[in-house]
């Protein structure tokens, strides 16, 4: 069995009376991709936000690369964050900066003593890897939804993360662009040898990118396993209905 890079044990999180996570457990092993499926508002994004310390759990343990995230001080938490790439649902590109400045932002703040030439080379390499070298001087407002997602991925990859987190990578995109993004997730996995968690409710994305699935319903992982294991023999009505309402190519 490969090394565990993420380990969530009995994770609970509530917002007022709304109990989002009711004691969930999940492991992510080095080099694999786990897809977390679930309805909107099920707590999928909350789970990965706890991983990077954007939210704190009410109880339970979230261990990332062997470190208990909740117990980390700011400096150690920031060091850990550099090993995690977070691709946001709406890409979260900085509106007031060009694509180049967006990519440069984490680079100049976290890697000291880089020459101008080295920075430019790194940025060009990242833009090439997502297939968008021509957008370097464009503003985020000039990019399409799919291009924004790709630039968002490039910005997270620039710090060579060990773990990639994709929050709804195909949300709001047309089917062809969705496929491009799915392929990009697989390419990133192969080229940069990352371990990934993909949050989605798009079963095509789950099937194409995931090694394992975990279906989050009513605050708990109701079903875990490969795509076939989770959906072909699904007995849980909600898991079944989740499959039935998605179009899947056989």
């Amino acid at each position, binding site marked *: 069995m490969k090394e565990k890079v993420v380990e969530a044990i009995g994770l609970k999180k*509530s*917002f*007022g*009376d*709304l109990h989002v996570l009711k004691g969930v457990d999940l492991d992510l092993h080095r080099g694999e991709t786990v897809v977390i499926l679930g309805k909107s508002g099920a707590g999928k994004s909350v789970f990965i*936000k706890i991983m*990077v*310390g*954007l*939210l*704190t759990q009410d109880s339970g343990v979230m261990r990332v690369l062997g470190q208990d995230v909740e117990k980390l001080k700011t400096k150690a938490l*920031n*060091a850990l*964050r*550099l090993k*995690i790439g*977070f691709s*946001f*649902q*709406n890409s*979260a*590109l*900085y*509106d*007031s900066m060009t694509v180049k400045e967006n990519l440069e*932002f*984490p680079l100049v*703040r*976290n890697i000291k003593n880089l020459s101008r030439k080295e920075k430019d080379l790194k940025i060009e390499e990242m833009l090439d890897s997502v297939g968008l070298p021509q957008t370097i001087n464009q503003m985020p407002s000039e990019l399409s939804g799919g291009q924004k997602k790709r630039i968002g991925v490039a*910005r*997270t990859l620039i*710090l060579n993360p060990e773990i990639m987190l994709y929050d709804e990578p195909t949300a709001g995109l047309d089917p062809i662009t969705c496929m491009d993004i799915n392929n990009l997730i697989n390419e990133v996995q192969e080229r940069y040898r990352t371990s990934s968690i993909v949050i989605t409710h798009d079963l095509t994305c789950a099937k194409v990118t995931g090694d394992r699935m975990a279906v989050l319903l009513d605050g708990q992982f109701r079903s875990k396993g490969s795509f076939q294991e989770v959906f072909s023999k699904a007995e849980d009505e909600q898991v079944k209905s989740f499959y039935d309402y998605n179009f899947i190519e056989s």
Partner: protein
Amino acid sequence: MAEEADDRKPLLSKKIDKFFKGLADAWNFVRRYFQEVFMPPFEFKELIHQCYRIGVESLPLISLTGFIVGIVFTNQSRPSLSEFGASSWLPSLISIAVVRAMGPLVTALIAAGKVGSSIGAEIGSMKVTEQIDAMEVSATNPFKFLVVTRVTATTIMIPLLVMYTDFVALMGSFLNVNANEMVSLTTFFFQVFESITFLDIWSSVLKSILFGFTIGIVGCYKGYNSTKGTEGVGRAANSAVVISMFLIFIEELLALQIVNAIRNM
């Protein structure tokens, strides 16, 4: 840290509880600014960028407003002074009014509208589109990059804009006085500098620093704590303007009492 819901039971009524919680949050926000402003790393490049945006980009509006204020105030004051045959006192009256009150107040109110709303809306939209979270997960302190730079920039630039407004308003006043009373530039400014004291200038500068800080901190606080999507961004921008204008008037009133007390000592 992202905002988390508070599930504690309200101590008093919900509204009063919310008000005091808001005050405590605002106080913590101000305290955090003072903790972070002197701590490295310093975002000098962003600070200069913000100074340019707040200062240079406000110049056309400030120039026009200051100039018009100078002309209008001179025109409105002339009949009253002429009644007593004291129209030669116009430069003195205008200089005292502009330097002591109108310059700082007009500049601060315009900046609250232009700069405060833009800061509130910009940071608010960054919040709701997760750009602030994106900064945080890339190991950058968003408070330092967004809040410290903007608040420091308004605190530096508003006093400079006030001095500029004072000058432009006095020039507007001079044109009016020159056209009606045939007073030369040298005579006009001789009377101006004879009327204003060291205390007037210092109180105006200190007051402007306070106004600048207020505009920056209120805009940033409202933006940083905006919720509920685009509707929240609009609300953040709106309340940034309303609250900072309200606070500016309160500060003006307090400053007036303090300066008068010093003057009477």
